């Protein structure tokens, strides 16, 4: 009952610097599409079950004509099978497409988390380093190698892609890509102590051709001697 009402509100308020529903990259885009499909399906199922509940309460004579066995077989077995099978296949294919393996050897950037800041290194740019700001080229897939030097953190730029944990002792790779130049926001998404709330970073996406120069300028300004 709340869903339609809320859906209206949601469509109006999807924007925001951290909104997963205002995607600015292909990964976030396909996950947002997945969400809208699932929302439509979930709304229909919720309406179905609550409608049946209302029916059995208000029109028991109608409901009694369906045999108990049919209730359980149709509702408990057939319905989940119809809904879940295509959803799982679709999701598996979506997930496979988003993995950091298809494109030929994209640029790698290292994201190192520590309480409570992010350091980004760009091996392809001669080991340039920036703190608290991630520089990306637009329209180019990038593999971010996420590590941590202390506790577990998580690397997340909601408008570009899903998140991946920064686990000490492990290196996780996340494929991200931004469609257009601009400034985005990223944050730590795994609770990491008293500074967790403030562990954010900015993402500056440059036009691909200007990226090396912009990065060099940014790194020169930030890197300490």
């Amino acid at each position: 009952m709340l869903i339609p009402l809320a859906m209206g509100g949601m469509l109006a308020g999807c924007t925001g610097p951290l909104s997963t529903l205002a995607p600015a990259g292909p990964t976030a885009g396909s996950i947002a599409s997945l969400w809208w499909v699932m929302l439509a399906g979930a709304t229909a199922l919720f309406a179905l079950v609550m409608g049946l509940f209302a029916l059995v309460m208000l029109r028991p004579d109608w409901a009694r004509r369906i045999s108990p066995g049919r209730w359980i077989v149709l509702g408990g077995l057939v319905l989940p099978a119809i809904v879940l099978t295509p959803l799982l296949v679709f999701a598996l294919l979506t997930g496979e497409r988003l993995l950091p393996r298809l494109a030929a050897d994209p640029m790698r950037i290292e994201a190192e988390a520590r309480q409570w800041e992010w350091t980004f290194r760009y091996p392809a740019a001669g080991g340039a380093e920036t703190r608290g700001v991630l520089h990306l080229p637009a329209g180019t897939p990038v593999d971010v190698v996420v590590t941590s030097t202390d506790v577990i953190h998580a690397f997340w730029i909601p408008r570009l892609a899903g998140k991946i944990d920064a686990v000490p002792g492990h290196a996780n790779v996340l494929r991200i890509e931004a469609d257009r130049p601009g400034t985005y926001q990223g944050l730590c998404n795994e609770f990491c102590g008293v500074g967790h709330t403030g562990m954010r970073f900015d993402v500056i996406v440059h036009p691909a051709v200007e990226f090396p120069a912009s990065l060099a300028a940014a790194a020169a300004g930030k890197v300490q001697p």
Partner: protein
Amino acid sequence: MSSSQDDTATSGASQPAASAGAALSLHRQLTEIWKTGPGWQRLAAVNHSVLGIRFMVTALVFFGIGGVLGMLTRVQLATPMATFMEPGTYNQVFTMHGSIMLFLFAIPMLEGIAVYLTPKILGTRDFAFPRLTAYGYWCYLFGGTILTVSLLAGVAPDSGWFMYTPLSSNVYTPGINADVWLLGVTFVEISALTLAVEIVVSILTMRAPGMSLDRMPIFGWYMLVTALMMILAFPPLILGSILLESERAFGLPFFDPTRGGDPLLWQHLFWLFGHPDVYIIFLPMAGLLSTMIPVLAGTVLVGYRAIVVAIIGLAFASFGIWVHHMFTVGIPHLALAFFSTGSAIVAVPTAVQIFAWLATLAQGKPRWNVPMLYVFGFFSTFVMGGLTGVMLAIVPFDWQAHDTYFVVAHFHYVIAGSVAFPLFGALYYWLPLLTGRVAVYRLSVPAFWLIFVGFNMTFFLMHLVGLLGMPRRIYTYPDVESWTWLNLLSSVGGFIMTIGFALAVIDLLAQIRFGRRVRRDPWKAATLEWAMPIPPAPYGFASLPHVETRADRLAVGEIAPALARGEGYLGFTRHGWQETLGVHMTTGAPEQLIVLPRATYLPLWTALATAAAVLSMLAKLYWLTALMAAVTIALFVFAARMAGFDRDYGRMPVGRGVSLPVHTEVVHPPAWWALVFTLVADATLFTSLVFGLLFLWISAPNWPPNGVPDTDLALALAAMAALGISALFARAALRALVGRRTPRLWMGLATLALLAAIGLAVVLIAGIVPHPSAHALGATAAALLTFVVVHAGIGLLFLLTATLRLASGHASPRRAIDLRLARLWIDYTAITGAVAIGLVLALPALVTMLGMRP
């Protein structure tokens, strides 16, 4: 309890009488035997009705505390950049909100319901181990108190309720905050585990005669499956807590990536418990619904067999999907797809139950009353939570939604809404049973709507704010317009919900105080808990029924007076014994006369000693911990020493022309099955430990270690041999006792062999390379060998108890349970010991195989 009156076995039995006067006199005699004394003697209570209510009331108090903490977080988050709380305080508040709601409210509440209702619904007078129930209650109360006091002292756990390490390690949480969680929660968990064993054994062996498993009311199945799940789910968490506490206290690096440990091992152990825990909390609530819904609809439950199959399937599935809490830790996608599919498939058994309930409502004439309102509240929240659950099971979506407020919304729908609504519905439904009064329904309806509207307002909006990117566990947020108004509305909803819960509690209290008195079943129910005068007498049933149909369609109104007149089994008293019947596990044929222990302070003292051990551990006074642990163990041995009888009774009449042996004189009394299920739990813990070793070997960073383990083969083989020999001697001792020969020599030899095994294992531990504090490999080897030492030590306690009981005449060729238990334990120790020592021996080979690591 040693009762050695010299009456002959039969003379105490009086003939069943048909008059009301006889019913009253029987009531008086039974009450005299079963009652809990007044005043301070209440602390000695072991009666399931008394303890069940204590569990539920205490759980409701913790629900209140947890609720207040939840409201504090909503105050803090109501507006952007709020300064109501410091981040450190906020971290303690949200950690304790989750920990209290799950460990101190949800699980103890289901235990209270199980303790109070199960014996009544199954037609028996009490649970199998009343003193253990009492011990479990005190452990829960003391553990919960330790956690709550830590909050008042400002040193409460602050690493989140799942305590991810390294954040919870002594490097990043140097204070005692994390120790409070690890020790306090483990204390409560062990109490939950003892109760789970008791629930399983009681359901399997103590039902009304004739109640075969397939005649058991569906509630019995739900509780049986839940308790079995607890036996399998708690050990991984208990193991994880022990390992993390030993890392914090003694520097053993199981989870420290710099020394060959892996923080992901903690996550696996935690969620191996944590995911089944969701179903452990939900299934009893579904059991309450499956019991209430048919009665409220005036019909019988549809799809009894389908539901039994569904909940067994759900139990199995729930152990295979823990990784869906870990989709973002970097596990390969195809592995995730497996867990994703498993998680989605859980929708099937859940849907079977939902549609069975709908079909039940459809077959009957459902009435709109207060419990039914809560059933409606449950349906809407549970379906919603189930649907978002399927969404989160979809891996790519979880990559976005994980650890945002979307997840917070989802799990509040599935474990707050789907617990609170059935629970309050059940309170309204069963309160007449507890109090003998029916509701006045003035406040009930507005209270429900406030809860319902407030709940949805609070948590539905969290889905949206989560999708808009708000992570969980942040103490404040900048003024992002879309987050601001959603958070404010969530907070307002939270207050509406809180007012609703407060009104519901006032309403329930008013019913307890002012409700209209009723003498019997106000719902026209058909299960046995209503076949007794209400509120129930301490003995429950004045005599036990014989069940000949499925026990959820009984003519309660006819059965109750006959039982009160003593026309069933055991409708008399003798020797001042608290008697009930034990039945065959599947057929329900009566097999033994179970005599239960009377009220005693022993559980209280034992729990106090246990609490002292926990507190001294917190204070890092390890010598005191050892002392208090020894006192606890001594009290357990003391309790065991006095159990049962010091003479044989032979077969005793139990009414209706049946004669049965006393439980002390059968081969497999409840105590035997309790040990069997305890060993199942223990084997789960052992398997988790082996899994931990293999997991570290396969995936932990900083392997291989510098030193290669070089275990002394001769010593290791000697330790294995000593364990095997002790098992043989224990078997010989049992054979001797049963064959009417003295078992003392064999028991002495078994003791010596166990002592030798302990000594050898200690020498092996001392020689472990790399040193246990230097690398996780050494730490794991030490853990495996310590497991052997502890189990051999407990084997010694079994032999000690048997020796004491032989000396005091409590053991005899017919009363040989002590040596049976010792034999079983030592067999188990020898087998797991061989595996553990064998693994330690295999470590060098494992390390050289590291090249094969994927």
